[in-house]
């Protein structure tokens, strides 16, 4: 195995193309180094993306935010304007691993490792985040929910990688939130994770909503039926019950040591309702911290 640290996107694309699938990108390394050690992957070349300026840092402009794909969760969590605009996204990515993992783990890595239970992904889906993808065919924009195609699998073509994420500027009277269920209080993998983003009109009626759902299917899901249960309502008890039912109906989970199929389906609905309540309070303008961890 060799190591290169290119300084531009083009150099990285060329290195990956030259190795024709035998090279692996490195950002935070919190998944890759574990896989290297276990022999799960054995690339000829590791291409470290962290020296490429477009992969690093957070920028705010009139259209919203751009986050470099290799930016660490710790750095993102310290960005006050981003946390004010998209508190659910920031809460979600701060749930990933320990303080030590936060110092290295990247948003791009959390997505492209393609775990069905990745905490940042349902929140990014709810927020309507879009990935900038670079590769031998040039650059393209891909909605976050179109990246993961199965456990450990993505829609990225050979030689492609995520350069950055675009998060829109929140509309007026908007709020988002993310909640996950784990059996302990910290340092575990989601049994269910739900992200909700919504916008209200001046009368308090929901005009826009997106619901992202994690750990209950082979991929994180965009649940359009759950969003429809909120749109056009005042997010009252009936709407929240419809949201919970639609979320549970979207689940295609597995039994494992963290939870059974029946438990996950039930919990998904409960969490969706609680997450929507927090997003609603934020959209109404009160600043609320999500109550789960």
């Amino acid at each position, binding site marked *: *195995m060799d190591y290169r*640290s290119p300084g531009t996107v083009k150099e990285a694309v060329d290195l990956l193309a030259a190795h024709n699938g035998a090279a692996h990108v490195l950002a935070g390394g919190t998944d890759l180094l574990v896989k290297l050690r276990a022999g799960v992957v054995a690339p000829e070349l590791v291409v470290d993306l962290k020296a490429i300026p477009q992969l690093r840092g957070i920028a705010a402009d009139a259209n919203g935010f751009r986050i470099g794909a290799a930016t660490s969760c710790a750095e993102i969590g310290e960005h006050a304007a981003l946390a004010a605009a998209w508190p659910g996204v920031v809460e979600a990515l701060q749930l990933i691993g320990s303080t030590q993992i936060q110092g290295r783990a990247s948003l791009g890595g959390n997505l492209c490792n393609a775990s069905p239970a990745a905490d940042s992904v349902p929140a990014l889906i709810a927020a309507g985040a879009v990935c900038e993808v670079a590769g031998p065919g040039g650059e393209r924009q891909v909605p976050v929910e179109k990246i993961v195609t199965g456990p450990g699998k993505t829609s990225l073509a050979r030689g492609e990688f995520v350069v950055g994420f675009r998060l829109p500027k929140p509309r007026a009277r908007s709020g988002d939130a993310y909640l996950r269920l784990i059996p302990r209080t910290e340092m575990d993998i989601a049994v269910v994770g739900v992200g909700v983003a919504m916008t209200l009109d001046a009368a308090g009626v929901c005009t826009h909503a997106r619901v992202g759902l994690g750990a209950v299917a082979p991929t994180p899901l965009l649940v359009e039926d759950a969003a429809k249960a909120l749109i056009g309502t005042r997010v009252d008890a009936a709407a929240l019950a419809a949201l919970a039912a639609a979320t549970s109906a979207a689940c295609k989970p597995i039994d494992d040591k963290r939870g059974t199929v029946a438990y996950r389906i039930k919990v998904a609905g409960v969490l969706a309702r609680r997450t929507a309540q927090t997003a609603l309070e934020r959209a109404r303008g009160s600043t609320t911290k999500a109550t789960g961890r």
Partner: protein
Amino acid sequence: MAKHHVTTTINGDPVEFLCTPAQTLLDVLRDVLYLTGSKEGCASGDCGACSVMLDGRLVCSCLVLGVEAQGRSIETIEGMAHGDRLHPLQQKFLEHAALQCGVCTPGFLVAAKALLDRNPDPTETEVRYWLAGNLCRCTGYDKIVRAVLDAAAEMRGN
């Protein structure tokens, strides 16, 4: 495989070393530079025994490649005491008997120092969450948490 020549800074001193691309920063610290204070517990980022600071961020050195140290600044447990004068955290770990076998201790100290450098007056809950990535299998966490809180109080001048 050709070795890479890496120039870095460790505990304030310029350091050069040779390593293969597959060696982790922990491997380099322990086996190349003989800085054996950082420990290998799990080698998968779960236990925190290899915690170091990398450009001011707390990280597991088992999850960093040695070649990634090029041009960066690293702080290890070896830089914590000033000669014979222990850091207040080290002193409080001794006073509170916050260690038994000691394998987790360097990681806890590096992680706790990172917390107190950011937040000189953490709550017990903040200490426990911050240190959730450091595992101890013999002392238990209460003495460690008490030592950290006591060191924080002393460092604030209470």
